[in-house]
């Protein structure tokens, strides 16, 4: 296992200490409890927004704590959802009297732990609403299964909803906006390589030199199918077509597009995929009105990428463009 780490069991805490040291102007990190809180929390009268999930997806979520996005993030062990204690402490820390929104990615562990935390917080008299993201079109949605995973849309949703919360909008409106963004967005990902969970010490799966996995999530898990390596154009097509079809995107519509790296893929390749995506959507007369290209929701050192599209209207565009100031996303201030 080749990693810039000390002991596997110290990975999360030391990375948190590094975040604290690098971004002490923006965040306060409780390294013991594993909670990253916005510096000036709680903001009185503002809905508090928290999210959380396993570590290994950096910059998500800790990198999105700050003005115009999250009020707190709860990182769990690598690829393991955090525990209710963290979420409860974070909820209390960011409650400015206007209630707290939990943004939960749809994985059994995340959902169950956030569910317990929300129950505990409500028992403490805090108004909590939860929104579960489930944008991964690689997974068939069904009432009888765990349903679709929450992936890339989570990042874009946290930005948009965070901007709305800064306006002082009430919890019901903030959570409605979160559901809207989730409904408006879809994602799909692929892997060129596996990744190594530090405590496991070996790759989660083996992949031949000429193979790739299509339809992966963000936990180093194998995808829906293993296929022969293909060109960036073909891969972009494999990821984008199911998204466009599921969203029923029509000529003339505008989207916010994210080409996201899984952690081990260099930016030069992500721009090649963005070029392919741009050409493909251009051919369908779909406009990329806003975009993000980079590593935003990762799977440790996995090589690969995911594509996320969110159908834009004026309202979403306005909150997307609003100022944000976090370790990983910053504009307008």
């Amino acid at each position: 296992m080749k990693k810039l780490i000390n002991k596997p069991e110290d990975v999360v805490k030391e990375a948190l200490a590094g975040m604290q040291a690098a971004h002490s102007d923006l965040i306060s990190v409780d390294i013991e409890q594993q909670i990253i809180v916005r510096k000036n929390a709680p903001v009185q009268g503002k809905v508090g927004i928290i999210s959380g999930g396993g570590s290994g997806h950096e910059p998500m979520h800790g990198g999105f704590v700050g003005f115009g996005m999250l009020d707190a993030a709860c990182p769990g062990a690598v690829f393991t959802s955090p525990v209710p204690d963290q979420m409860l402490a974070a909820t209390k820390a960011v409650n400015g009297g206007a209630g707290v929104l939990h943004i939960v990615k749809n994985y059994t562990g995340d959902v169950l732990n956030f569910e317990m935390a929300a129950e505990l917080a409500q028992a403490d008299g805090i108004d909590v609403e939860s929104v579960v993201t489930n944008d991964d079109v690689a997974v068939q949605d069904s009432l009888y299964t765990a349903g679709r995973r929450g992936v890339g849309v989570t990042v874009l949703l946290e930005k948009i909803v965070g901007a709305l919360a800064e306006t002082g909008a009430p919890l019901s409106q903030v959570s409605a906006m979160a559901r809207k963004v989730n409904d408006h967005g879809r994602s799909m990902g692929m892997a060129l390589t596996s990744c190594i969970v530090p405590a496991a010490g070996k790759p989660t799966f083996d992949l031949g030199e000429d193979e790739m996995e299509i339809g992966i999530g963000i936990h180093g898990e194998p995808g829906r199918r293993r296929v022969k390596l293909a060109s960036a154009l073909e891969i972009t097509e494999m990821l984008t077509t199911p998204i466009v079809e599921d969203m029923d995107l029509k000529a003339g519509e505008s989207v916010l597009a994210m080409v996201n790296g899984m952690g081990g893929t260099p930016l030069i390749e992500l721009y090649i995929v963005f070029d392919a995506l741009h050409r493909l959507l251009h051919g369908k007369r779909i406009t990329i009105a806003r975009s993000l290209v980079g590593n935003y929701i990762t799977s440790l050192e996995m090589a690969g990428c995911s594509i996320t599209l969110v159908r834009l209207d004026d309202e979403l565009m306005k909150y997307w463009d609003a100022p944000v100031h976090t370790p990983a996303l910053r504009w307008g201030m």
Partner: protein
Amino acid sequence: MTNEDIMRWIECTADVLRENRTYLTDLDSAIGDADHGINMDRGFSAIRDKFPTMATMDIPTRIKTVGSTLISTVGGAAGPLYGTAYLRAAGAVAGKQELTSADVVAMLEAFLGGIVARGKAQPGEKTMVDALTPALNAAQQALNDGATIEQITDRAATAAEEGAKATIPLLATKGRASYLGERSIGHQDPGATSSSLILRCLAETCVGK
């Protein structure tokens, strides 16, 4: 089962999950995210750290401590599921200083009940439920047949082990493995496996009773 037996069951579970840390993680690599053994070991290591303070606790408090520690330290799907299971198990033996055969079966029923209440899985979805459901059935059958507590827990553990094995051909529809669709077939479920290990510890604790 005496209060000491309960403690030995918990100690055995902590040891066995540590021994099977890699095995459970490998199972989770195939159809999950390669952390189930790590998660369970983290939780039971935290419980091990509490052994000194647990020394003076009664049966329900001991079991409840296991549950709340799992909830606070495991995370993932297994944390709330097993945490709720132990909490409910503790509730089922409230006030008891010693457990009869019927108490142990009632505890098992509550344990499974906690997992179903949290996770909403049916048998056949390739989860812990597929080890614990046949285990509870076997235990109830053995109790009705007038078996000893040793026999009851041994049959429950054996049924759990068979149930875990029987998850191999199943298509997962709950948990992370469900994302794999057809590719989940052919692999043993890690959670069902850890459930069978927990029950085997229970049976070993009851040997000679």
